[in-house]
């Protein structure tokens, strides 16, 4: 097994362990503070998934900028890996958030919440970039266009970050690293930490595997091009 796939496997195992700990070991929350306390356990999946998505979107941004300004093949592969990993983890965060929102708020989505919408838009952008890129032959036109959208999408990241702190309408504010001491129980914090580390390892493995796959695709295309006679 290659290094990327090994890291991916370790991350995936950690995510599975997080799920088990969240369902079986993590303490229950106060029944008075939540409409649906059982659904709160989604939090152990939802928050690390969102964290991993931000790492992936960061990679998408760096890869996009690297391609546009340096014309680096490695950076293009990072763009591809970042968008695919961002799509996977973004969908996990959105899906888990909708389930939790439906149970806790009575509605899976709130169009007036900036944080929800900006994160949803990031995920939609990842879908757009992944589907759009797969629909086109590889070339500078394709790379330039989607790298530009990769840069554009990253503008949404600080907006989402700011929104979590100052623009909270329905979505709760941050529960860790708030600067005024952690607001969650230590056991909860431990499960959340395991989740965050697992998702980070998962996303790194995912991107390593994806970059290797893209490199193989590029090698295959070059070989086909040579077989075509270079025309």
């Amino acid at each position: 097994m290659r290094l990327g796939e090994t890291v991916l496997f370790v991350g995936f195992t950690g995510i599975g362990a997080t799920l088990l700990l969240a369902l079986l070991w993590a303490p229950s929350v106060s029944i008075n503070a939540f409409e649906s306390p059982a659904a709160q356990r989604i939090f152990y999946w939802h928050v690390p998934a969102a964290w991993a998505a931000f790492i992936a979107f960061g990679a998408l941004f760096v890869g996009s900028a690297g391609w546009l300004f340096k014309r680096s093949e490695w950076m293009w592969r990072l763009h591809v890996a970042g968008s695919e990993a961002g799509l996977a983890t973004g969908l996990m965060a959105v899906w888990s958030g909708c389930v939790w929102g439906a149970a806790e708020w009575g509605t899976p989505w709130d169009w007036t919440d900036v944080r929800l919408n900006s994160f949803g838009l990031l995920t939609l952008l990842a879908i757009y970039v992944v589907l759009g890129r797969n629909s086109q032959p590889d070339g500078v036109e394709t790379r330039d266009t989607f790298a530009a959208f990769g840069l554009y999408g990253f503008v949404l990241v600080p907006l989402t970050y700011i929104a979590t702190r100052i623009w909270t309408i329905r979505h709760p504010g941050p529960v860790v690293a708030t600067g005024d001491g952690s607001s969650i129980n230590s056991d909860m914090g431990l499960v959340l930490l395991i989740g965050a580390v697992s998702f980070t390892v998962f996303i790194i493995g995912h991107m390593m595997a994806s970059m290797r796959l893209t490199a193989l695709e590029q090698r295959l295309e070059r070989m086909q091009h040579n077989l075509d006679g270079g025309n």
Partner: protein
Amino acid sequence: MAKALLNLVDVQVRRGMNTVLDGCSLSVGGAQIVALTGANGAGKSTLLETAAGLLPMEQGHVKHGEVVVADAEGRRRTSPFTTGMVLQRNGMLGSEMVSEHLQMAMSMSGHSVDIAPFLKAFNLMHRANDLVAHLSQGQARKVAVLAGLLPAFASPTPALVMLDEPDAGLDDASIETLVGWMGELCTMGHALLIATHDERLMVHATQLFDVGQNERQVNTPPAGKKAEPRPSRPVKPLSPASFGVRMHLRTMMWLNTNAMAGLLTLGLFLTMGDFMEELDSLQQMGFILAPTLAVGLCGDPLVAALREERAGVWWRAVGGGEPHAGWMPLAIGAAFTLLSTTGLGNAREAHVILTGAVLCFVVWHCVGWMQRSTQRLARPHAVFVGLLTPVLILPYSILISVLS
């Protein structure tokens, strides 16, 4: 050598994964005809479109006179010269009339000449008021060639004419006529850059440039008689927005897409009965403006229409930008908001109508920009631009909360 109207300096261009032009430098002065030669795929069309500032470069820059019109950093500036352009495709919409297209092409130079002698020479006089869609392929090609040459004939100052295989689809007599006009433009001091495989055009070039080999060869064309400039009169250039509005009004393409989306949304609300009275003011405003939002979310149907014969690319080359709907979304947005307030039984308030108009205008042009951003791709229709449109829901939500 005459002062250079066109300079390509150390240009590198990639198409797909291939480097088509590498370190290419070329200069074309006034009263010169430079023929681009080379095998299929050598990069003649790429060089021509790069010279027009249509293609991005990996390195180098393109100057029209002293103005850098395009460089590898992505900077773009409008050419100081009148530009005539013939693409491999005809660059016209089927809904344009022949005379209208030619007058419009000439208007880019700020001047106009009588088109009748040109139409007669190409045996197109009886087709002057026909739609381009009604012409045969050969006739349409003749119109495209005239649209590339006429701006230079009308221009009192040196013009830059770029022709990509203008001979394709033309009969022998028409090619003879074309060669005569090329010589005439050359003696008038204009610069011509032509991509061709036709020997009859090549022999009239003052220079041959082998694109594959990056080599220049001086040629001695047959002596031509000195041509006098044709009488021209000043005209107002047609803007991309004016052309876009004209095409929208003529084809009613907005009715088929934008208006239908708005009407269907409003119709759906009306089937729900008298529900507005039970809603709070924020919800009411949301329902009133929703049909207008639907109108805008369809974007500009002109973007798809301009893919026909690469008409949008032709406009970028000669008109400085792609045609768009201009002010039309304002009027359509106001009309739909009025219709919506009336249909849903709310009071017609001026500020709501005005907000609807602005909402439609902003959303329409934002989606239009998203649609245009994919035009450079090999398969723009295969990209799901609709996935990006939810970005407009948030400002819509904020807008209705402010209004209510």
